[in-house]
Structures are given as structure tokens and as C-alpha cells.
């Protein structure tokens, strides 16, 4: 049992140091929450309250009602009225308005005849995702209906148009678990061993009877716990703030997360056997992080990438974890259903651990 006691001694020491390192400890809790708020709110294709200017050349009760309906969708917020087409263009050029609503003088006749558009929407093409918005607004029934009295209530349907966008946000939050775990796990573990090497602690440690396995496992143990805490934190915030559903079983999710945490830690460990300084370790961790975030299907659809990028993505553990986590949380899959990406994660874990163990020696040369 001495074997296990030594491992625990290392783990306890590591946890104690971690608890005293307020900045790092703050990062462990702060980073997930901050990322969640940042990604959850900022990466949101559910566009709202876009500033709009109105050029109402008709000035009838119908045109006023139309503008009122558009505002009621909450997609647009009328911030000003233009007296002329030139004034409207100036307002858009200055960025005061992102959308211009031009209502024709003969609005009622055009609506009645239905052969020419009655309302023109000018959209600022320099802003992402506003194009979609125009498409959505364009299909607003009131603008297409040919009959009179068209200003009926079915403009709520616009919200339906934007549902796919809302689903994207929901999709991002589960994937954030993997992204945040990658950041913290890889960076913290890669630093953990290098820090002791830099401070000279390692030279002392490796002249004691402690074994490689005890040393490495003991160092990783606290981080496994931290990873699980972070997972819980993200799930809770996702649920409370963003209403992210949980279609599958929590047990499956935590088991999947455990394998992924181990894989990320193994990668960090491997980095720590190469890096000589904490700065080098940080840089290397960063090099693995960027492709993880960009290529794992976290933000951009995997299918849209060239074969070369897909090949890289296959090597990244985050790709497979995102697959697993989306399956479990959104599609209600079980871990058994996700055995293919899970197996790939296990392979990654095994390879990284062997590499790290092979490189880590209880020697200085």
C-alpha cells in the first residue's frame, strides 16, 4: 500500500499548492464561467434589436402599422426616420442604422396588385448574419400577401425562421465543455511538471524512491477532479442561462468526459516532458489548442473542411469528444452509441501516455 500512499502524497501536495495559487485556482473556476458567458452570448446567430431607419414615403395608417409590426418582432428596432433616400443611405453609411426600410408611396396599391415589391429592405452587407435576417424579414407574410387587410398578426412566424440560429447556440454550449477542458487541462498539466523542473523541485524528487508512475499519476489526479468540476460547472451554467437540454444520461456524459480529461492530461504530460520552461510548455499547449478549437467542429462544420484539415481534426481528441458530447446532450445517444469516437479517444490516450512515460526518466540527461 506504500505504492498508493506515495501517489496520494504527491496528489495531496499538488492539490494543496493549487489551492494556494489563487490566480490558477481562480482560472479553474473563472475560465469556464467566462468562456460560457462569452461564447454563449456572443456567438449567437439569434439576431435581435438591429438598428433600423425608416423611409416612409407612403405615410398612411397601413405603413405605420407595418413599421409597428416589424418592431414587434424585436428583430428590428427603429432608431430614426429618414426624409429622403439620400438621408437613409447616409444613416446606413455612418452605421447609425444597419437596415433601411423603404416603403413605397403607393404602398396600398402595390400590396393589392402584388406584382411589385411594396417594401424594400436595405441591408448592411458588411455585417455578418444580417443577410439571413433580411431573408427572414422578406418572407414576413405581410409583405407578400396580395390581399388587402394583409396586416394581420402572423408576423410571429419570423421567430420560427430564427429557430435554427438559436439551435446553433445550444449546440455550442455542450461543445464548450471540451474546448474549456482542453484549455485548462493541457495548459495546467503541461505547466505542472515543467514548473517543478524550473524551480529545481524535480531534481530532489527524482532522487527519492518515488516511481515514475506515482509521480505522474499523483500529479494528474487533482486535475482529473478539477476537470470534472469544470464539466459540472459548464453543464449547470448551460442549463441555467442558456436552457441547454440534456437528452442523454448524465452518467454517460461524465464517463465520456473522464476519458477526454485523461486524454487531455496525457497530452499535457507529454508536452511537459519536452518543454524545458513553463513558457515553452505554454506555447506548445497553445499550438495544440488553436487547431482543436478551429478544426474540431466546435465552431465550423466539420463537413465543410478540406480533407487535409479533416485529417488533422481526426488526430485531435476534441473532435471526437465534441461528437460524443453532442450526441449525448442533444441527440440523446448513449455512450455505447458513441463507441467509435470513444474508441478513438482511448487510442489517443494510450498513445500519449506511452509517449510521456517513455520520455519521462528519473534522470537529468
Amino acid at each position, binding site marked *: 500500500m*506504500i505504492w498508493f*500512499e*506515495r501517489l496520494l*502524497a*504527491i496528489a495531496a*501536495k499538488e492539490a*494543496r*499548492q493549487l489551492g*494556494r*495559487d489563487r490566480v490558477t485556482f481562480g482560472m479553474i473556476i473563472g475560465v469556464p464561467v467566462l468562456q460560457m458567458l462569452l461564447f454563449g452570448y456572443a456567438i449567437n446567430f439569434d439576431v435581435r434589436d438591429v438598428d433600423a431607419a425608416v423611409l416612409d414615403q407612403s405615410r398612411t395608417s397601413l405603413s405605420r402599422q407595418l413599421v409597428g409590426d416589424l418592431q414587434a418582432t424585436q428583430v428590428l428596432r427603429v432608431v430614426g426616420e429618414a426624409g429622403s433616400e439620400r438621408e437613409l443611405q447616409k444613416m446606413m453609411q455612418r452605421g447609425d442604422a444597419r437596415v433601411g426600410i423603404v416603403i413605397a408611396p403607393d404602398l396600398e396599391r402595390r400590396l393589392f396588385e402584388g406584382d411589385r415589391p411594396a417594401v424594400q429592405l436595405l441591408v448592411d452587407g458588411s455585417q455578418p448574419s444580417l443577410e439571413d435576417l433580411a431573408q427572414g424579414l422578406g418572407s414576413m407574410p405581410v409583405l407578400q400577401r396580395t390581399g388587402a387587410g394583409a396586416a394581420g398578426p402572423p408576423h410571429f412566424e419570423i421567430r420560427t425562421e430564427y429557430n435554427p440560429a438559436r439551435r446553433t447556440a445550444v449546440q455550442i454550449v455542450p461543445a464548450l465543455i471540451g474546448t474549456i477542458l482542453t484549455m485548462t487541462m493541457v495548459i495546467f498539466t503541461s505547466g505542472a511538471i515543467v514548473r517543478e523542473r524550473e*524551480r*529545481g*523541485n524535480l*531534481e*530532489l*524528487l*527524482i*532522487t*527519492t*524512491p*518515488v516511481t515514475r508512475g506515482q509521480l505522474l499519476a499523483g500529479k494528474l489526479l487533482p486535475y482529473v477532479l478539477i476537470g470534472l468540476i469544470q464539466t459540472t460547472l459548464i453543464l449547470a451554467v448551460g442549463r441555467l442561462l442558456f436552457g441547454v437540454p440534456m437528452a442523454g444520461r448524465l452518467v454517460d456524459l461524465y464517463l465520456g468526459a473522464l476519458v477526454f480529461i485523461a486524454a487531455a492530461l496525457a497530452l499535457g504530460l507529454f508536452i511537459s516532458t519536452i518543454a524545458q520552461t513553463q513558457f515553452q510548455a505554454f506555447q506548445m499547449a497553445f499550438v495544440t489548442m488553436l487547431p482543436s478549437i478551429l478544426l474540431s467542429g466546435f465552431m465550423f462544420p466539420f463537413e465543410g473542411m478540406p480533407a487535409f484539415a479533416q485529417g488533422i481534426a481526426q488526430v485531435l481528441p476534441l473532435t471526437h469528444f465534441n461528437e460524443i458530447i453532442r450526441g449525448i446532450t442533444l441527440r440523446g445517444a448513449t455512450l455505447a452509441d458513441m463507441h467509435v469516437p470513444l474508441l478513438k479517444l482511448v487510442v489517443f490516450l494510450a498513445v500519449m501516455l506511452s509517449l510521456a512515460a517513455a520520455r519521462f526518466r*528519473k*534522470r*537529468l*540527461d
Partner: protein
Amino acid sequence: MSVAISARGLLRQFGKVVAVAGIDLDVPRAQIYGFLGPNGSGKSTTIRMLCGLLVPTKGTVSVLGYEVPREAETVRRKLGYMTQRFSLWDDLTVTENLDFMCRIYGLDRATRRERMADRIRDYDLAGFAKQRAGTLSGGERQRLALAAATLHDPELLLLDEPTSAVDPQNRRDFWENLFALVARGTTILVSTHYMDEAERCHRLAILDLGHIAAEGEPQQLARDIDATVIEIECADLTAVRRVLATVPAVRSMAQLGNRLHVLVHRELAEPERELRAALAGQCADARVEKVGATLEDVFVAATILRKAGGVERAA
């Protein structure tokens, strides 16, 4: 005389640089054995090879009867090592550091409590047991490091320049502690670049550029020095130096206040007379006297002379 460490033809290269150039070493048990040498003379590299941290490029090492590095893991249970840098954890308290090291050495709860209490008392650590190691002074850290290195009652202690960051009083106390350990049968190998520390060792190896330049008991080394030591007192030492620089028999000069310490070829039959004669023109009233060699003279004779092929005139 039983031997704790024995090395034969120990050689270590880093790339093209030869750090330790094939040395033979026999360290007797229950003594303090010193490595004296300047920075870069191979002291740390040798110590690291002895505890298995570095693998020798060539040569064999036996520590406490075990072959290193093959049986390094066995040796490590009986060995205490103090690195040149303070290598305990700055963000842990004195007690936490000691407790951690006890656990690493696999001591059970009762032994742990007893040893920690002993070391805290012996090394005068009670006053800051709850203080973090990072806030301790140089001398306090040194005592903590020695306490940690001896928790498991090692048979052999390897100390790599343990006192380089410690004031003289603390150094004295530190050495008292070392002698107390030796009295209990511990073998200590200590590297230093302080002459006064080297003088305290039972035996000494002077290391220079990876070679052992001289080896033996300090007094013996002083007696066997390969030079005659002459001390010169004179008002104008600068002039004396200028003159002596032209005398072939003079191998080294070093000024100590208003005296000049001169190493002269041993073969010179009457060195005092020769030097007086040489100085007659410049400094007729010079007092020239033969004195006993200090360890520093031994060190200079063994290192600088060898390097310069016999003639060195330190300005």
C-alpha cells in the same frame, strides 16, 4: 577502512564538453569527504552521477555496495541529497515540506511524527514550523533542506554546495550539524568552493577541469604541496610583484593585505635567499620568510599551476 563510494574511470561528456574526465574516487564511511573546486570543475556532475541522476559516459560507480545507475533505485532509499538550489517547495510550510518528504520515503505515521519532531528540534526549526519555506532566510532554508534530506536516516548524504547562500555563522552551525551526523555513522560527501569548509573535511579531493588535481587529508595535502611558500612584506608590493614576475622560479603570487604570498618551485634550494637577492635593487628592506602552506596554496598549486604548465603569475 570501509568504503561508501567507489568510482573508477568516471567520465561524463555533454556533447563535446568533458565535464568529468575519468576520475577514480574512494570515499570512506562515516567521514566527511569534500570536493573542492571552482565552478565548472565537475563537482555537481560527479555528485549527480553518484546518485544516478546522470549516466556516466564511461566508468563504474559503486555506492554503498550497489552498482549505479543500474541499482540506483535501491541506493535512493539509503541516500539523502541536497541540491545546490533550494529544492523544497516554497509554497508549502516547513511542516508540510517535511511531512511530504516523510511520505515519499514511505515512513509510517508513528515514525513520521517522531522524525519530524526530532528534526525540527535538532535543526532549530520550531520557530517557523508553520511558515512557508519561501519566506525563510538562507540559513533557515539550509537547515530545512538538511532536515528533509535526513528524515529517512540515510547512510549517505550528498550535499552539493550546501552553504553557498548562507552567512558565516550559519555555515558554522551547519557544519556542526554535519559532524553530529558523522558521529552517528553517516557518510557525507560535500562539495564547496570555500577553503575554510574544505579544511573541515576528513578527506578532500581538489577538482579542476574534471580532473582530481590532488587528494588526501587537508593537513597532508598542505605538507605535500608541490611548491615552497614564501611570504614577503614590503612597503611597495607593486614593485616587488613587477620584479618577481621576471623570476622564473616564481609560480604564483597573491596579495594578502600588505603581504605577498609567493609559490616558488620546490627544487629551488634556498628560495628566501634567491628572492631577497632578486629584490635587493627595488626593496632592500623586504622581509622574506618561508611559511607553511595553507589549503589555498595547495589549491592554487594544484589547479592554476597545472593549467598554465607550471608557470603562472597572477597579477
